[in-house]
């Protein structure tokens, strides 16, 4: 069955423009809107609702949903579908995300665009399946063996769960890279209002297909059609380019070059720098009350919600407190964090783990800025009062 994105059908199937839905479902909506035509998934709490949504909606927009035998198979099928030209995604949580890591690396190495939604729960191992956490942030960044760069987004609201799913597809297509949507059990199961964008309110990025002469085409090198882009044009399977795609170190033609250091260096440097070159352009943050702030929360995802509440409490008492929320967590927004650290005296980093994002924040903050890690584990968000107490202690 061939998929063709049909905006009218999509809007009809999604229903009312304004809805009150769960974050997980909003991820499915985002995928449908983005033109995702393949979802391969395996049930896991608290991410199952994404797959359940896809099972319900995908066939009605002529897209394919398949419940695979496990998470390894899920991401494998997603990568295969991507090579046949599909925008493809999977959704999972901690244990499944761990299982996906080898093929996450494969997608990075073979420059396969796809989206992995991770509705984070606590870990390690089975942890607390029904409770939210943010303990996989470093796994998204470093989960594969070998050298890699990551692209990851972290939604704080149900609306963002949908919007950032679309954005995840856009970034994955633009950079030919697997993008992690790092949501969590709190946002995933929360119901909130969403406003579904109309077709003209959305920007969709499509991958650049290989178009040049087949004899001239080089599959794993800088784009041959986009000036200055390190992202190769995509030779969709079935279009006659007869590309060999391998997770082995490969030369520009795609042929194995396992015993050639220069080929490995060239390949890895390109697939990392195609992303890090755009670090500033990719940076996507929300700034709240930062103009005169002396203390700032730097946070992301669900943790930004109690942090914002704490900012409001502090402001009511005349305290100069603000918040920087990283919507895109990887590649790490070095400059904006560094600039902030030169303006404020103290940065507080609340996160639902034992302290992960606090490490790059510390690394890139000015040395004279005090960094306070405010971790919380156990499957509960910080209470605004808890964060306010930390503010009072500064």
């Amino acid at each position, binding site marked *: 069955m061939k998929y063709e994105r049909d905006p009218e059908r999509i809007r009809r199937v999604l229903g009312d423009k304004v*809805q*009150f839905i769960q974050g997980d479902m909003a991820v499915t909506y985002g995928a449908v809107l983005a033109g995702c035509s393949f979802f391969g998934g395996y049930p896991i709490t608290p991410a199952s609702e994404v797959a359940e949504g896809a099972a319900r909606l995908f066939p009605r927009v002529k897209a394919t949903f398949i419940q695979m035998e496990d998470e390894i198979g899920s991401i494998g099928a997603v990568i295969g579908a991507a090579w046949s030209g599909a925008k493809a995604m999977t959704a999972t949580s901690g244990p499944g995300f761990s299982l996906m890591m080898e093929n996450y690396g494969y997608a990075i190495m073979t420059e396969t665009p796809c989206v992995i939604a991770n509705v984070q729960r606590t870990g390690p191992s089975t942890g607390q399946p029904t409770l939210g956490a943010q303990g996989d942030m470093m796994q998204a960044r470093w989960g594969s063996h070998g050298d890699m760069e990551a692209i990851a987004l972290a939604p704080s609201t149900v609306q963002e769960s949908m919007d950032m799913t679309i954005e995840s597809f856009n970034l994955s297509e633009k950079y030919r890279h697997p993008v992690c949507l790092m949501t969590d059990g*709190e946002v995933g199961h*929360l*119901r909130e209002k969403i406003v579904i964008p109309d077709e003209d309110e959305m920007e969709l990025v499509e991958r650049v297909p290989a178009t040049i002469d087949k004899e001239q085409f080089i599959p794993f090198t800088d784009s041959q059609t986009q000036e200055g882009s390190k992202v190769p044009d995509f030779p969709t399977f079935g279009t006659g380019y007869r590309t060999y795609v391998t997770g082995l170190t490969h030369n520009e033609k795609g042929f194995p070059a396992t015993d050639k250091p220069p080929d490995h260096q060239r390949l890895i440097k390109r697939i990392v720098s195609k992303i890090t070159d755009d670090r500033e352009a990719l940076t996507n943050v929300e700034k709240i009350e930062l103009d005169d702030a002396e203390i700032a929360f730097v946070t992301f995802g669900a943790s930004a*919600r109690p942090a914002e509440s704490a900012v409001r409490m502090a402001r009511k008492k005349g305290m100069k407190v603000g918040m920087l929320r990283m919507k895109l967590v990887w590649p790490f927004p070095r400059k904006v964090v560094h600039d902030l650290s030169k303006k404020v005296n103290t940065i507080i980093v609340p996160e639902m783990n034992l302290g992960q994002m606090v490490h790059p924040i510390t690394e890139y903050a000015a040395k004279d800025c005090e960094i306070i890690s405010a971790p919380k584990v156990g499957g509960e968000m910080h209470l*605004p009062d808890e964060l306010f107490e930390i503010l009072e202690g500064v």
Partner: protein
Amino acid sequence: MKKEIRICGFGGQGVILAGFIIGKAACVFSDFNAVQSQSYGPEARGGAARSEVIISDEKIGYPRPTGVDLYVAMAQEAFDTYRSDVRDDTVIIIDPDLVPKHDIGRPLYKVQVQKIAEELGNKIVTNIAMVGAMTGIYDLLDKEAVKKAVIDSVPKRFTDLNINAFEKGYEAGKNARPE
């Protein structure tokens, strides 16, 4: 303005749907912000269940309730389990037939929502009758907004039944006094 509502009962009674309808009425059919969360896990298979809604005219940061302004119970076990943080000024609504042991030394609203549903011929709409009662008692959401949310959230072939349950519940709520 920020109001925190907790609706509890036993699994299968539709407390999640009741919370969903209230949340939807607040943010889709009215101009408030709303979030709804629920206890998740074994409760879906019976036992005490709860659904929590926060309604505010400001942006809602922290999405979990920190207190309870309106406490609604449709089962004894749930009433006993989730009551610990009820304040003196918390409005409490119960169905006395479902929560027979409700004498906690303070007045509360009693509405026989299950009886309303039974008189309509289907116990399944007990939750919708309670949504009606809540709307009648607790002066927060416009009746029409909640009614729209009910219509929007129930299967089309049961619209009339649910609207009747909602109306009867609303009427009973309007007439109820804390006792």
